[in-house]
């Protein structure tokens, strides 16, 4: 059995990164973009839907231009809150604006081997190992496919990945690695098999889908078809923009927000036009491209600001948000990784993003590190504690105890201390040892985090998936291969 999932709830800290007036301005700019510039929807099905609702469709360029009211009315259909369900119902995740849940990051292509530390291509075994550790880790609320199962055939890879996670964890599975109609259909069938049929799945969505937009102002055809299928099945679906200042968006932050926002809300509006009331979410991992290399940079002040700003936008539309946090550009677990992952996650948390993505990857979500995974969880725990703020009441003011100790005494042997000391944060990986002890070992957080991952992998036994179900999932995958 895994421990109860840790989530941030009832926070005492607040942040206003954008005023309501600024949010409205970005919204209006977004509507102007969708109406006058348009968004590319390279899917026949998507274009047909837009056309049937009276949007202007340039069939040749596959660009849709829609009036503001069409978008606004469509978005009003989206549910404000719903639940991401887990195989184990006690691990369900309410996306209600009052919880922040963390997932594993995705989708990496290399792994720092848990035993040897050597960097190598990722495989299905890594997907299952990571799922197993995530299952046992309370900071992790749900799974993204963390690394690509490159030893599996490309046409069914995404299906093997979700199957493997279901077999190794009872927590909710979200995949960002299924982006065509064929695989989406099979994935929905697999989720139905576990849930006990299509209706049961609609009531308890054990799977959610995240599709990337194609910035600037575009969508991917396969992603659109997969998203429409998912929305039809009642599977929560989001569109994620990664529009970056300088390359796929303007160098200015507000302009880049408007570009990303246009991609996301146009995609979500399409789903609501086709399937009103379908559970959808806003997803974003916007950043600035590096001024020297042009590379996308996870981390940096722009990334941190976007994390909070997009929450303001999602709140404005009253739909749940999944935000890219963590996702450092550092090449190994180091100073840069600590700063980037702490700051981005703090900004996303303090604005109460529903889902954070996610723990474990280095080098711009390319290289999986088990040590980073565990240390990212500790970052979340630190922020989790910080967000609780300071409780001020008679009990916490502790006047009786202060009087009992008096000037010059100490509080170590007070009953009040005993009662409340476990409310203080106790780190797993921070070095608070005497200097001598450190000097004799010269080990640090990275060693302890890796040791913890190894121990968890060796010891944790997830509640298994019924072997009959596993066989059924396998059969569904085989059908796709034919």
């Amino acid at each position, binding site marked *: 059995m895994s421990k109860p999932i840790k989530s941030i709830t009832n926070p005492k800290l607040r942040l206003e990164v954008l005023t309501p007036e600024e949010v409205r301005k970005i919204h209006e700019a977004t509507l102007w973009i969708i109406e006058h510039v348009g968004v590319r929807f390279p899917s026949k099905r998507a274009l047909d839907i837009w056309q049937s609702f009276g949007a202007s469709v340039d069939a040749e360029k596959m660009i849709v231009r829609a009036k503001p009211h069409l978008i606004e009315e469509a978005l009003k259909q989206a549910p404000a809150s719903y639940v991401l369900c887990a195989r184990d119902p006690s691990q369900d995740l309410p996306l209600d604006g009052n919880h922040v849940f963390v997932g594993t990051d995705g989708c990496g292509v290399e792994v720092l081997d848990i035993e040897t530390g050597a960097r190598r291509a990722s495989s299905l075994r890594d997907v299952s190992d990571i799922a197993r550790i995530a299952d046992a880790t309370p900071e992790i609320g749900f799974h993204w496919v963390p690394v690509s199962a490159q030893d599996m055939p490309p046409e069914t890879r995404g299906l093997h990945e979700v199957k493997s996670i279901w077999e190794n964890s009872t927590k909710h599975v979200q995949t960002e690695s299924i982006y065509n109609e064929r695989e989406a259909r099979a994935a929905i069938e697999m989720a139905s098999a576990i849930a006990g049929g299509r209706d049961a799945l609609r009531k308890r969505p054990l799977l959610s889908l995240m599709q990337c937009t194609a910035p600037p102002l575009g969508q991917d055809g396969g992603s659109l078809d997969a998203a429409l299928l998912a929305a039809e099945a009642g599977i929560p679906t989001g569109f994620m923009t990664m529009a970056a200042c300088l390359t796929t968006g303007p160098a200015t932050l507000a302009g880049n927000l408007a570009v990303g926002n246009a991609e996301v809300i146009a995609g979500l509006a399409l789903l609501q036009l086709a399937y009103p009331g379908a559970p959808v979410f806003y997803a974003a991992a916007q950043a600035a491209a590096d001024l020297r290399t042009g590379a996308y940079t996870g981390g940096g002040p722009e990334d941190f600001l976007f994390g909070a700003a997009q929450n303001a936008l999602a709140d404005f539309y009253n739909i749940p948000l999944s935000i890219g946090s963590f996702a450092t550009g550092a090449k190994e677990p180091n100073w840069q990784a600590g700063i980037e992952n702490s700051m981005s996650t703090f900004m996303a948390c303090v604005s109460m993003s529903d889902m954070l993505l996610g723990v474990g990857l280095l080098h711009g979500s390319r290289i999986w590190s088990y040590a980073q995974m565990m240390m990212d969880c500790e970052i979340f725990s630190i922020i989790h504690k910080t967000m609780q703020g300071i409780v001020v009441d008679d009990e916490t003011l502790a006047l009786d105890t202060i009087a009992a100790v008096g000037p010059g005494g100490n509080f170590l042997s007070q009953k009040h*201390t005993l009662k409340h000391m476990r409310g203080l944060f106790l780190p797993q990986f921070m070095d608070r040892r005497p200097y001598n002890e450190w000097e004799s070992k010269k080990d640090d957080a990275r060693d302890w985090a890796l040791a913890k991952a190894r121990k968890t992998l060796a010891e944790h036994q997830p509640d298994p998936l019924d072997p009959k179900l596993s066989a059924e999932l396998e059969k569904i995958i085989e059908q796709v291969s034919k």
Partner: protein
Amino acid sequence: MSTELFPKMSQSIIDGDSDAAAALAQQAVESGLDPLEAISKGFVIGVNTVGEAFAKGDAFLPELVMAGEAMKAAIAVLEPEMQKRGTARQILGKVVLATVEGDIHEIGKTLVGTMLSASGFQVYDLGVDVPSAKILAKVKEVDADLVGLSALLTTTMVKQKEVIDVLDKEGLRKKVKVMVGGAPVTRDWVQKIEADGYSEDAIGAVAVAKQLVGAA
């Protein structure tokens, strides 16, 4: 019947409940129980339990301190009875403890005292801002095996050296081991003033003290 008290004694230490520990010690005295047995079969079991939990990371500093203080409360009640019987609890050594002259930082020194006392040392805590002469006098008076000197400032740290020099002048340096502590104390400093040992925290101080009296 009195053996029923043992688990309760142990529990009073685990709970860090000084009042309960003292009351149980009093009960032991009244029922004619050998104080040494009360300690070894009752109270010490509790101290060991908390110590083990601390080492495993399941118990924290306040619990350790409270256990130490409860132990002290029990011993205080049992001590007169031991004297009456002409017995004494086996102690690992006698320690004179002080924060040096000019320095009023107390908590680290007090913690070390509590830990040493709970581990079987007889501790004479002279408090803070204690002149070297006063420390020397106490060492002579109780025939101390160990001196523990705390200093939190680089400006008062020099007094640790002064105490060592005073002991040396009196010809006590060979007999009395000196351990030092405090945030600015480093291994280099310890070597420079030729102290016998140091620790960066109260838990480590117990190990150092035991080593210095040959009880490790």
